[in-house]
C-alpha cells in the first residue's frame, strides 16, 4: 500500500476552537518520553567521570525534547494511520485538535532547538547522535520502514535504543563499549515488546495497512518470533551482567526478570489463537506489561551498579 492511497483516505473529524497547551504537549508522546528520559539518565550516570548536575539535567531535558520532537514529526507523517487505529485515533492530529502542519512545524522547530541546545550544553558528538536519532526515527522508521517491511520494528527499534548512548556521550564526549551494550539491550527488547502488542491489538495494524509481522506472516509465526527474540534477549541481558555496566545487583535483577520474560514468551508460543481469544489475550497483555517493567528494572540495576559505593557496585 502506498503512502498516497493512505493519505487521501484521511477524513479527520474536525472540532471547532483552538488546541490547548496539553494538546501540543501530547504531540511529544510523553509516555514514550519517560522511557527516553530514564534510559538517557542511566546512560549519563553510568558514564565515568563527573558532570555538573545542572549540565546533566539540561542534557537529559534536551534529549527528551529531541525525542518529543521526533514524536511530533511521527504524528504528522502517520496521521492517516493514527486515524484508523483504535489505539491512536484520539491523538491530537487525527482527532482534529491540531493540524498535521502544526505538528510538523513543532517537530522541526523542537528538533533543531534540541540538537543545538544539547551541543551548547554538552558537546558536538552528543548533539550529532541526537540529530541522527531523530533522523532515524522519522525518516528511516516512520517514512520508510514502517509501511514497507515486517522487519519495521526490528530495525526501527534502534531509534528508541539511542538515548542511553546520547546520555553517555553527553557526559564523556566519546563513545565506548558500555553505551553500545545499553543500546543493544533496548534494540533486542523492542521486537518482542511490540509483537506482543500487535497480537492483542488484533485488527488495528491490519486495518491501517501497516505490515506488522501479524499481518504479513500471521499470528503463529509472530508467536514463534517472540520466543526466539526473547531467548536471544535473555542470553544478551544475562551476558551483560559480566561487563563494565553489570555486577551482582544487575545479575540478580536480570536473572529474575529474564526467567519471567522467558516463561511469558514460552506461554505465548504454546498458545493458539482460540486459547488467546478465550481469555481476551490475557497472557499477551501480561507479557507486554512485564516488558515495560523488564526494561526499567534492567536500567535501574545498571544505574544502581554505577552509583553504589566503591566495592559494592560492579564486580570489584
Amino acid at each position, binding site marked *: 500500500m502506498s503512502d498516497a492511497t493512505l493519505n487521501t483516505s484521511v477524513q479527520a473529524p474536525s472540532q471547532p*476552537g*483552538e488546541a490547548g497547551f496539553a494538546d501540543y504537549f501530547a504531540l511529544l508522546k510523553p509516555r514514550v518520553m519517560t522511557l527516553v528520559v530514564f534510559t538517557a539518565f542511566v546512560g549519563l550516570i553510568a558514564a565515568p567521570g563527573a558532570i*555538573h548536575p*545542572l*549540565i546533566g539535567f539540561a542534557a537529559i531535558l534536551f534529549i527528551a525534547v529531541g525525542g518529543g520532537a521526533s514524536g511530533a514529526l511521527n504524528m504528522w507523517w502517520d496521521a492517516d494511520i493514527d486515524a484508523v487505529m483504535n489505539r491512536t485515533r484520539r491523538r491530537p492530529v487525527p482527532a482534529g485538535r491540531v493540524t498535521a502542519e502544526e505538528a510538523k512545524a513543532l517537530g522541526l522547530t523542537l528538533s533543531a532547538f534540541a540538537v543545538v541546545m544539547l551541543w551548547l550544553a554538552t558537546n558536538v558528538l552528543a548533539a550529532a547522535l541526537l540529530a541522527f536519532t531523530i533522523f532515524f526515527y522519522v525518516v528511516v522508521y516512520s517514512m520508510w520502514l514502517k509501511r514497507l517491511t515486517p522487519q519495521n520494528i526490528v530495525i526501527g527499534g534502534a531509534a528508541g535504543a539511542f538515548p542511553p548512548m546520547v546520555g553517555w556521550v553527553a557526559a564523556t564526549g566519546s563513545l565506548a563499549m558500555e553505551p553500545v551494550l545499553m543500546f543493544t539491550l533496548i534494540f533486542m527488547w523492542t521486537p518482542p515488546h511490540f509483537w506482543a502488542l500487535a497480537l492483542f491489538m488484533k485488527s488495528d495494524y491490519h486495518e491501517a495497512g501497516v505490515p506488522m509481522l501479524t499481518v504479513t506472516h500471521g499470528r503463529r509465526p509472530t508467536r514463534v518470533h517472540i520466543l526466539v527474540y526473547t531467548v536471544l534477549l535473555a542470553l544478551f541481558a544475562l551476558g551483560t551482567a559480566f561487563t563494565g555496566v553489570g555486577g551482582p545487583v544487575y545479575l540478580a535483577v536480570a536473572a529474575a526478570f529474564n526467567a519471567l520474560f522467558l516463561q511469558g514468551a514460552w506461554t505465548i508460543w504454546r498458545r493458539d489463537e482460540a486459547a488467546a481469544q478465550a481469555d481476551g489475550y490475557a497472557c499477551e497483555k501480561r507479557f507486554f506489561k512485564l516488558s515495560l517493567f523488564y526494561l526499567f528494572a534492567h536500567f535501574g540495576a545498571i544505574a544502581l551498579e554505577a552509583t553504589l559505593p566503591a566495592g559494592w557496585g560492579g564486580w570489584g
Partner: protein
Amino acid sequence: MSFSKIHSLHKRRFSRNLGLGLVLAAFVALIFGLTVVKVGNDNFSMPQAQSGETQ
C-alpha cells in the same frame, strides 16, 4: 471571532499562553544557570586580547 462570555476557546487559548509563558521562563532560568556553571568552570578562560589591541 469574538465572544461576550468566557468560552471554552478562551480557556484553551489561556492554557496555551500560560503554558508557553512558563516554558519560556523556565528556559531563561536554565540558560542563566548553565551560563553561571560554564563560566564558573575551571576550564573557562576569557579570550586573550591581541597585543596591539591593549591600551
